[in-house]
């Protein structure tokens, strides 16, 4: 309902400004994310950033109005696939963006990219399969391949001299990629590698007891969204926060911090985007987001903002004419837009070649708990699956 309203409002606005709106069919964008259930807060953050991108673009791409159709994957692969199918076949969208979860993206992937007319831009999930064997010219990423962020963390832990590490993550596609990622680069001793039931396990008492008994130099975790909140709280309550430092990817961010609060202070994580990166596009994005919503955006939001900006860059270059898909793909491949992470290039598999930073959880001058950049972990990183992708 809300989506239709936005669409109508866009067209109404275009007419009010005297554009030949009737003659132009608007650019249609589908956006699949999780808008209900325990992880709905992530979807909401993405939606806010997409709407902000729309505002910054003045509601137009290459002179054409565009409408965004949001679809809720309900955090379920089968629902995500059905929603994606609907967007491709019924709504006939030009682009589909979004996808938080690797398992949802993997289920929806073929339906979208094999169709030939729709270009998929993942604003978060980056399963290894899609970066490697299953890469496709109709797929772009404005995030990362799953292994990359933990690889960056592993590099940093080497330089920091952390001698042994206990790995914990959820038992699904991304959990395995993430733990495999840190093992690719980390040179110290892996004490243990535990997988927990996903998504229904929220109690980590058994794991905390195991970690306390193993006495590692550090814990490495990957627990996105609500699960990250749980893990960090239970880590602090078990008293392990005084003895074993926590290193994380995707488990402490603008969405989880309001709930983790002071318990997360001092923890380190790796990320390709941080809210304090000093480029103009980012300053504008973060400031406007904060003004509107009173909180910091998360990387989920930043990647969604970039996904819309990437679509817009192609539409601008082609003056709004998206009929020739080869041209659209060629323009997108240039990544010719001001990304909030700073400039980046696309690799042969259409994943970004980008920097990764180390972030620390701190309090900002207003007393709000947030993250800030403390180091660059790796520069211009190429994901380890790019070589397996047959595209040039």
């Amino acid at each position: 309902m809300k989506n239709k309203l936005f669409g109508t409002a866009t067209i109404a606005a275009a007419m009010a400004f005297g554009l030949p709106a009737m003659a132009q069919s608007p650019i249609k964008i589908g956006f699949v994310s999780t808008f209900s259930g325990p992880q709905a807060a992530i979807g909401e953050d993405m939606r806010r950033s997409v709407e902000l991108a729309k505002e910054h673009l003045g509601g137009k791409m290459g002179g054409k109005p565009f409408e965004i159709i949001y679809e809720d994957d309900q955090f379920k692969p089968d629902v995500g696939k059905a929603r994606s199918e609907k967007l491709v076949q019924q709504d006939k969208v030009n682009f589909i963006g979004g996808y938080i979860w690797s398992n949802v993206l993997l289920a929806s992937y073929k339906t979208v990219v094999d169709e030939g007319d729709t270009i998929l831009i993942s604003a978060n999930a980056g399963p290894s399969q899609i970066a490697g064997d299953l890469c496709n010219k109709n797929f772009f990423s404005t995030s990362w391949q799953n292994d990359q962020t933990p690889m960056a963390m592993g590099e940093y832990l080497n330089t920091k001299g952390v001698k042994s590490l206990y790995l914990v993550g959820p038992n699904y596609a991304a959990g395995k990629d993430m733990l495999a990622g840190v093992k690719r680069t980390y040179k110290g001793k892996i004490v243990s590698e535990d997988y927990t039931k996903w998504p229904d396990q929220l109690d980590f008492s058994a794991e905390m007891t195991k970690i306390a008994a193993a006495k590692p130099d550090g814990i490495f975790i990957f627990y996105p969204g609500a699960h990250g909140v749980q893990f960090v709280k239970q880590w602090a309550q078990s008293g392990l926060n005084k003895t074993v430092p926590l290193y994380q990817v995707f488990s402490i961010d603008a969405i989880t911090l309001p709930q983790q609060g002071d318990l997360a202070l001092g923890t380190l994580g790796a990320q390709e985007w941080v809210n304090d990166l000093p480029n103009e596009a980012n300053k504008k994005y973060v400031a406007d987001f904060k003004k509107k919503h009173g909180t910091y955006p998360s990387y989920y939001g930043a990647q969604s903002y970039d996904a819309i900006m990437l679509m817009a860059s192609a539409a601008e270059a082609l003056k709004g004419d998206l009929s020739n898909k080869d041209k659209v793909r060629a323009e997108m491949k240039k990544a010719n837009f001001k990304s909030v992470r700073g400039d980046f290039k696309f690799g042969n598999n259409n994943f970004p070649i980008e920097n990764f930073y180390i972030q620390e959880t701190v309090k900002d001058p207003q007393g709000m708990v947030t993250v800030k950049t403390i180091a660059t972990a790796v520069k211009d990183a190429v994901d380890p699956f790019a070589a397996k992708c047959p595209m040039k």
Partner: protein
Amino acid sequence: MEYLLLQVLNGVQLGLLMFLLAAGLTLTLGIMDLVNLAHGSLYMMGAYIAWTLIGVTDSFVLGALLALPATFLLGVVVEAVVIRKLYARDHLTQVLATFGLILFFNELVRALWGPAGKSIAVPGFLNRTIEILPGVPYPAYRFAIILVGALVAILLAWLVARTRLGMLIRAGASNRRMIGALGVNIELLFSLVFGLGAVFAGLAGLMSAPIASVRIGMGDDILILALVIIVIGGIGSIKGAFIAAMVVGQIDIVGRAFLPDILKTFMSSSAASSAAPAISQVMVYVLMAVVLVWRPTGLFGQRT
């Protein structure tokens, strides 16, 4: 040895939380013959109401204590408005209607409290570790859950075995029609039982909140486990629910704490670490299947 003790305690704590949820469920199913899928929603509502009241009173204990009568009231209202109309219907209608209640409560929470989860801090005096044995620390809050859970279990055992209400509950579990025929006010009894179930579910929800977080749909995952527990224990039996919850709690912990190491003795380390959670996930259901083959009405279920 200490490690074993800690893991057993973890299992006990998990089992007691599950028991609180299962107790209400087994009462409604056994006595009222009502399939109530929305029991998990009462668990969630207990946590959200507690979050609000803790914010208002600025005290965890006070907020939690006030949340209990509030969830009781909520239970009584839900029973009067929706559930009462379902007693005469078949189980399928009850499943559909109470599933509708889940959706209703999830959306209600989204409308009232927003999509983002809420967090309840561990009360200050419990925000530390205690030494259960010299040199063996355990989170004080989890220990408090064990104490409260055990206390409630004893209270419930006393209520069922020694009071007039308990007598009616037991009578209702074995023959519902007969106690109606004997002139017992069934309507009032059902209302009370449902409200009682709501209080236990709410208590479980609010106690788990500081460990986990208060979020939409938090009761939905845990409900399935609670259903498994009451089936294992025998529908309508509080004793059965208690024993089954304890067993399920231990199985869950064994699956997480010991299974990976056991598997590693005969398979590769990476295969073991990803097989272990999958196996521990099905162990509970295997137990249920075994129990049902051996005793089709559960461990302590009424023979029919």
